[in-house]
C-alpha cells in the first residue's frame, strides 16, 4: 500500500505553544488509521496540522508525494483533504442546504447529483434540509458535517472524534456511516477518536500519541488493550 498522506518529523502548534513534537505519521491508501491518546496529547492537532490550520515549525507534510507544508487550507481541500472537525463543524447560522452548498463550493456543477448521494447516506439530513444548522442535534450536526465534507469528493477523510457528545445509539449510526463511506468510496481515513473500542473495531492500524509524540504504531489487531490503557494512564513513551 502506498503512503498517501505523510507527516515527517513534524513539530507544530498554535502561536508560541508547541503541541506536536517531531511526529511522523503516514496514512496509506485504503486504510483507516486511528490516532488515539489521552486528552490533550495532540490528537486533534494532528488533523489540524494535516489541514494547514496550525503553525508548523519543523518537518514536512506530503500529500500523494507532493509537498504541502506551506500550502493554505483551502488549497489542501482542493487537493482532496476532507476535514470533519470535532466542534464547530457546521455553519450554525446557515440552513442545512446552504451548508451543503458550501461543502460543494469547489464543485458547484456536480452539486445536484452528489447531493442525492449524501441524502441517501443520511436521510435525516434530507428531512431537515430547510432548518438552520444550529438547530440540529449533535448527531445530526455530525452527519451534516460528514455530508458536506463528502461533497468535496475528498481523497482522504480526516475525522476528529466523530463519537464525542453523542448517545450510544447515535455513535453506532455514525460509525456505521463511516464504515459505509470507507467501503463504498474506498476513501482512506485518518480517525482521531476517544472511544478506543469503536476505533479499534473499524481501524486497520493504530497510532498512539503521548504528549505530542508517537508512542505506538501497530496493526489494530495486534493491540493489547492493557498496554494501550497503560499508555493512556501514565503518559510514558513505550514501543510495542
Amino acid at each position: 500500500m502506498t503512503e498517501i498522506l505523510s507527516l515527517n518529523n513534524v513539530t507544530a502548534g498554535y502561536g508560541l505553544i508547541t503541541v506536536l513534537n517531531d511526529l511522523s505519521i503516514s496514512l496509506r491508501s485504503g486504510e483507516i488509521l486511528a490516532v488515539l491518546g489521552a486528552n490533550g496529547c495532540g490528537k486533534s492537532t494532528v488533523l489540524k496540522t494535516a489541514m494547514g490550520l496550525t503553525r508548523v515549525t519543523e518537518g514536512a507534510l506530503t500529500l500523494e508525494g507532493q509537498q504541502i507544508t506551506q500550502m493554505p487550507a483551502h488549497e489542501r481541500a482542493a487537493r482532496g483533504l476532507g476535514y470533519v472537525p470535532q466542534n464547530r463543524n457546521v455553519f450554525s447560522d446557515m440552513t442545512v442546504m446552504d451548508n451543503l452548498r458550501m461543502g460543494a463550493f469547489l464543485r458547484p456543477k456536480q452539486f445536484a447529483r452528489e447531493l442525492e448521494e449524501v441524502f441517501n447516506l443520511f436521510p435525516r439530513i434530507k428531512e431537515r434540509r430547510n432548518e438552520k444548522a444550529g438547530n440540529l442535534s449533535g448527531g445530526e450536526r455530525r452527519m451534516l458535517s460528514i455530508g458536506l465534507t463528502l461533497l468535496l469528493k475528498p481523497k482522504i477523510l480526516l475525522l476528529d472524534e466523530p463519537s464525542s457528545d453523542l448517545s450510544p445509539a447515535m455513535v453506532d449510526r455514525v460509525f456505521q456511516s463511516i464504515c459505509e463511506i470507507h467501503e463504498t468510496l474506498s476513501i482512506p481515513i485518518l480517525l482521531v477518536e476517544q472511544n478506543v473500542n469503536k476505533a479499534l473495531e473499524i481501524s486497520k492500524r493504530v497510532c498512539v500519541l503521548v504528549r505530542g509524540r508517537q508512542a505506538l504504531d501497530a496493526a489494530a489487531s495486534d493491540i493489547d488493550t492493557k498496554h494501550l490503557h497503560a499508555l493512556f494512564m501514565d503518559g510514558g513513551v513505550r514501543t510495542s
Partner: protein
Amino acid sequence: MAVDFVFSFQCPEYFVLQVTINSIIYASEIAVIAVGVSLCYSILRFANFAHIQLAIVGGYLAYSFATIPGLTLPLPLAVFLAAIATGLIAVLIDIIVFSRIRHISAEGKMIVSWGVALFIRSMLAAIYGGSAKVFDVPTEVIVCQGGIFTTLDITVVGVTLLLMVLLHVFLFRTRTGSALRALASNYELAVTRGIPGDRLIRLMWFLSGALAAIGGSLFAMQTRLQPSLDLVILLPVFAAVTIGGMSNVFGAVIGAIVLSFAQNFLIWIDFGSLFFGEPWHIPTQLRDYIAVLALLLVLLLKSSRAGGEKK
C-alpha cells in the same frame, strides 16, 4: 411651506409624521455606513474605526470627481467612482496593515484601526484643508400630507434601499456571497471547504469601503464635508451597529432605524408637560448623548445576559 411647517408643529399627528420622515432619512444615512462596519466585524471580529474615515475619504473623492476643473463629472458618476476608489483604498489598507495583524487580539486590531483612522484624518486635512466643502446638489422641497422633505432626502432613502436589496441578493443569492456568510459563520470550517478566505476578505474590504464611500457622500450632501465630519458619524454608526448586533449585517440597518427613531422621538416628546406641567424638551444638541445612552444600555443588557448565562 412655512405655513405647513408651523402647522405641523401645532398638530401632533403632523409632527409625528415629520419626525418619522426625519428618522427614516437619518437612519438611511447611518445604515449604509453601519453595514460596512458589521460586514468587517462579522468576518474579522474587530470594530474597525478606520471605516468612518473611509466614509469621509469617499465623500472627498466624490467631491473631487464632481468639482475638479476639467473633470466635473455628474454627481452619480462621481459617487460611483469614489466608491470604487475607496473600495480599493480599503483593500490597500488591508494589504499594508490589517493582513499583517490577523493573528493579534480583537482589542489590538481595534487600536490599530484607531491609528489608521488618525492617519487618514491627518492626510485629509493636509490635502483638503479644514474648511467645509459643500456639494452643489440641486434639490427641491416637497410638502406631502403635512410632511416636509427634499428630493435629496428621497435620493438618500432610495439609494440606501437599493444598496440594501443588492447586498441582500449578493449575500443570499450568489455563491460568492454565501461563501462570505460561511466565512463569517465559521472561518476555519469555511477554508477547509476550499473557500479562499484571504481572497474573500479582500472582497469584503472592497465592499465595505465602497459602501462607506457612498454613505459618506450621502451624509456630506446632507450636511457639509470636512475632516471633522467623522465625529458626527462615528457615534450613531457604532451605536447602530451595537444595537443591531455587531456581526449581523442587516441588524445594523435595524439598529440604525431604532436609533434614529429613538433620537428623533425622544427630542420631540415634551417631558416637561408630562412630568412637571411646564413644557420641556431634550435639547437637540444632546442628540448624540441619546446614541451614547442607547450604546450603554445595549452593552449593559448584553453583559448582564452574558453574566447570567455564565452563572
